[in-house]
């Protein structure tokens, strides 16, 4: 029932976990980069050798404020990067932080994308670019090819275009207001490229309704597709059930956040999610 690349929790896929893996540790901010008017990246100092996989996430806490999940958007020998879109109270507080300040982390949690294969189509919407730029980097490093489709409201919210070009990936862009690239939705670009390319895998992250469209199109063509999902998270390690996808009973935090498209279509993905109380709301 579980996706093949199921996360660390849920049977100890990567060996035994211990309760202390669920405590916070401080991570000093080494560098802050403004990626767009709404989005900042934070380079965090972490213990040596900690390497999250693309698609894994951290629970990030700023004492005095809330703890929220954030995907790793890059990682190196001595740093990890998170890329934070200002959406509300907590993320606004994150945006006020500077070099030398600290955030507190638990994780990395979750399974991550499976990156076997040689040719990928990456479809990102908004801050969904965070895990996908990391995936693009890993794919390039491993000698794979990718086409990167990037969607945003307007030109200034398109993320990581320079970074992609440095990887040798030419992004195709769509903006809702037409200020850059195709005027319209990133799914229009998917319709244009999917029939032409010989993609082994499609990876997508962004607003859920966008991902839903991408997944339907890929599954319809028999192409393997993985989407990185968001649900309300409290524990991050599979205990509380807050992040469930019904009716299959998948936990986004540890059975995901990355799921195969075919599995997702058996769930309420694209239709309904639960709020902090557990109450269901339609999307």
């Amino acid at each position, binding site marked *: 029932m579980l996706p093949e690349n199921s996360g660390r929790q849920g049977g100890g896929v990567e060996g035994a976990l211990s309760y202390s893996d669920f405590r916070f540790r*401080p991570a000093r901010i080494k560098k802050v980069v403004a990626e767009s008017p709404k989005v900042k990246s934070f380079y965090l100092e972490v213990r040596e050798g900690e390497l999250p996989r693309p698609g894994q996430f951290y629970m990030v806490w700023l004492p005095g404020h809330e703890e929220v999940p954030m995907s790793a958007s890059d990682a190196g020998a001595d740093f990890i990067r998170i890329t934070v879109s200002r959406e509300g109270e907590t993320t606004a507080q994150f945006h006020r932080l500077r070099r030398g300040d600290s955030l*507190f982390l638990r994780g990395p949690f979750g399974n991550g994308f499976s990156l076997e294969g040689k040719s990928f189509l990456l479809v990102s919407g908004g801050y969904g670019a965070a895990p996908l730029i990391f995936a693009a980097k890993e794919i390039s490093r491993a000698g794979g090819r990718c086409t990167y489709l990037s969607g945003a409201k307007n030109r200034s919210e398109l993320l990581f275009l320079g970074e992609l070009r440095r990887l040798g990936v030419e992004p195709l862009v769509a903006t809702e207001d037409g200020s850059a690239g195709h005027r319209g939705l990133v799914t229009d670009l998917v319709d244009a490229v999917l029939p032409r390319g010989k993609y082994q895998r499609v990876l997508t992250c962004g607003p859920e309704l966008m991902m839903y469209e991408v997944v339907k199109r890929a599954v319809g063509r028999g192409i393997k597709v993985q989407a990185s999902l968001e649900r309300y998270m409290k524990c991050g390690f599979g205990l509380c059930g807050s992040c469930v996808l019904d009716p299959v009973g998948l936990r986004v935090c540890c059975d995901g956040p990355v799921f195969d498209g075919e599995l997702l279509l058996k769930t309420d993905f694209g239709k309904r999610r639960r709020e902090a109380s557990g109450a269901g709301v339609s999307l």
Partner: protein
Amino acid sequence: MKLGIRLGRMRMKNPTMLASGILCNGSLLKRAAVEGGAGAVVTKSLTREVREGYPTPVVVGVDCGVINAVGLANQGFASYLSEDLPLAKEGRVPVIVSVAAGRVEEFEEICVRAEEAGADAVELNLSCPHVEGHGMEVGADPAAVSRIVKDLAGVMKIPVHVKLGLSDRMIESAVAAEAAGAEAVVAINTIRAMAIDVDARRPVLTNVYGGLSGPAIHPIALRCVFELYRELSIPVIGCGGVSDWRTALDFLMAGASAVQVGSALAVRGIGIFREIEEGIRRYLVKNKFSSVKEVIGIAHGVKR
């Protein structure tokens, strides 16, 4: 060897249960039963009103367990009973609805509706250590326990279980619950605790106080079960720090008829119920017992 047990009027295919507040939602309760092999599952504690719970952080790890102050977050009993309970029941094991309330009438309203919706039993959470007016104070007050249970036992057809926390008057409360008509006592809930992050120099949980669960509390829970077994004739359900078949079996030997498993799911996964069942089965076969009933309370030395 079959590991089936009877818990009062309830039958279970094995003595493991999913503890309240863990996994929580209907589809995951079903998974705990079908994929995990749990003998019964307990819902999160339902309240009359929708509760958002406390702001994060609400669950953190410590050396030997977990501290949580989820704050009884739930969508309200009505929505849970109509949307989640049916899914949970697809797991084809008894589903016990946990209920938290501030007043007798509230308990009654929710329990009656749970029975109508198809719950196999109700578990009164008289022991939440981190929400005021919703448990701990009640569970530590034998007269209040007696009032609530008597009221419910009078109107309910399904069994009423009472979940107690660690308190000086736990035994008295349990005895009062039995006299008032409870059919099982669950012991224990989490123990009021806190965590301070030395780098942040402040309490980790937004609510400051939370409840400690996991291996850290097992010896305490074991002592509670041992004592309760001596005082009660209704079944005791052991809860607190079950992490493997040994910590489940010692509960049984102390006198528990069944065990509930919570925190260990985070480190062992959903399959822990089956692991426990298999471990106990191997033990029983190896030691030439003919049923699991024979080990219940065996640590007391005398047969009851």
